[in-house]
């Protein structure tokens, strides 16, 4: 099963590689990993998307907690949560395709953030499935370049992760 795990970690050099290392050393999957400082600059928040059986996910959270720099770990997928990912996608948009492309971006609530003679760069946020759907919806030949951040997640309502 796919799980989305949030980690609060001391903002120290090496903390990221310690976490990434643990995943590779123990043979766990990382589908995506995002990290950036929180409102408290001494701490970073990381979101890891992984797949594994319940046993594996239990071990992953335990092994994460065991790392000295990890402050807190939460498996967001255990309850209601929101997931967002940002994608920047550069597409072919010559005179013939322009209108179609604009309409498609609108349907997915994407924004065109850069334009050249024959390209658009579209910014799109949503959960991973929405981004996948957008890519699917395009003529594959029209895609020049994509970059995705990987998912960030947060619990719904009163579910919070902080120290």
């Amino acid at each position: 099963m796919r799980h989305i795990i949030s980690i609060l970690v001391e903002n120290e050099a090496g903390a990221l590689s310690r976490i990434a290392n643990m995943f590779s050393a123990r043979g766990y999957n990382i589908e995506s990993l995002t990290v950036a400082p929180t409102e408290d600059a001494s701490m970073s928040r990381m979101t890891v998307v992984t797949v594994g059986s319940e046993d594996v996910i239990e071990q992953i959270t335990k092994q994460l907690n065991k790392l000295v720099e990890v402050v807190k770990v939460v498996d967001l997928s255990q309850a209601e949560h929101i997931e967002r990912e940002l994608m920047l996608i550069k597409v072919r948009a010559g005179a013939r395709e322009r209108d179609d492309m604009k309409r498609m971006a609108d349907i997915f609530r994407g924004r065109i953030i850069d334009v050249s003679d024959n390209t658009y760069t579209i910014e799109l946020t949503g959960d991973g499935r929405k981004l996948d759907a957008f890519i699917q919806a395009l003529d594959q030949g029209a895609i020049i370049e994509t970059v995705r951040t990987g998912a960030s997640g947060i619990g719904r309502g009163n579910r919070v992760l902080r120290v």
Partner: protein
Amino acid sequence: MFKVFPALAVMDRVKGVELSGAEIVVRCLQEEGVETLFGYPGGAVLYIYDELFKQDKVRHVLVRHEQGAVHAADGYSRSSHKVGVCLVTSGPGVTNAVTGIATAYMDSIPMVILSGQVPTHAIGQDAFQECDAVGITRPCVKHNFLVKDVKDLATTIKKAFYLAATGRPGPVLVDIPKDITTHSCEFQYPESVSMRSYNPVRKGHAGQIKKAAQLILEAKRPMVYSGGGVILSNAAPRLTEFVRLLGFPCTNTLMGLGAYPGTDRQFLGMPGMHGTYETNMAMQNCDVLLAIGARFDDRVIGNPAHFAQNPRKIVHIDIDPSSISKRVKVDVPIVGNIPDVLDDLLALLKADARRPEAAALEAWWKQIELWRARDCLKYDRKSKLIKPQFVLEKLYEVTKGEAFVTSDVGQHQMWAAQFYKFDRPRRWINSGGLGTMGFGLPAAMGVRMANPGATVACVTGESSIQMCLQELSTCKQYRLPIKIVNLNNKYMGMVRQWQQFFHGNRYSESYMDALPDFVKLAEGYGHRGVLIDKPADVEPALREAFARKDELVFMDFITDQTENVYPMVPGGKGITEMILSEEL
């Protein structure tokens, strides 16, 4: 050596005195009460060595290879419960230390490794003797630090000692660039440190402990399975009280030998791949298994699917949540410091008038005695060749079971574990998790350093001993009268045994050709060497060697090359699917 600087101690108490990083390192060690430091100098740590020279509180022991330093610090720690400390230089100093660090990590040994690093401005430049020490050791330390500012040095060292010794212990490395050792700042050693991200538990969950007590009281075929955690947390006396109170059978893993007295009737022997028949049968057939500070290692439970075939309730007490339900699902997990948990459990049981059903326990013991009657450790006592088991029995007799015994890795290790009965914790010192050949001799040095005057034996094989042989020179320098029991079968015996059983007798590269004359070799290092090749000479040789209180004696026992370790659970099999000696 004269190193008298009387003003120093007074001077730096005065606030505002600045110390160099190198001075700070040494002062931190003094403040931590470190008496012995194992190390090897080099460019990046010269300033630290300079400061060591100027004081005499911390004794530096110069080894002959950094691996030896780490194993010695390890043996020091295992035999004393103190944190082992070592100091190595950058680059090759660190890489040489890695085997030792990984060894300590696998067995959860509290240790602090100080390593030199190239100056901060040179880091990342492929400088001379640069290696990414923090990166290279990351997977085999509990934690590590690179000190980037002299102002952080004292706190970092304090944290290192704190992390190494608390929670599930382990090695912690502090990498110190050379320029940091010359920069200076005001020194104050913190009395304590706290880290919001690190809060080891002590007390176990009261509700879980109650559930455990309930299971214990309902048990009909109980079994206590205790491991290295009991020794590391100094819980052996409580374990003994617990097992005796209940009258339950008990096993200690390879890492836990001595936690419950090995000569006691309730002790069934070691479990696992080379465990006793009675223990493996009891582990498999019990209805309540109490795992205490043990981690269901693959060498202990064999094939997990086979282990799971028999229904039983499992209580697992451990300080490390990630050890629980890792390989085997448990019913009552209790995360906590073992002495605290056992205290609470004992209090509950003592306050309760109920006891496990006596008739059921009696029937269980009857069954166990039948298993025990198989006498699974028997060997040919009439052989004209020296049987390794016989040497260990005699070693036990001659040392009255009171020696510290270190070991290397191989058949000799298993025989030592089977035949030397450890009645006390911290007497059996071996590399269980990583299985590091070369561990025995340097570990024995550390043991003797931590226990001056104690009898220390190193049980080894002709292959293992050659992996850290250079430390014989250290033994000479520091007059460490270790007794080396070399069970010389001219083979990597354990490899040969697997090749015999599972690879059609094809002894690929496991024969030890061109062996040195160990007697001359020992003499070359300034020690005494003896060769023993007849069974009748075994006991006299041991007696004479141990009578020489001040000498290192290298006893080269020429043993039966064909002897195997029994029982044996082949890889992938269940623990009751043992090969017994009588079946061959």
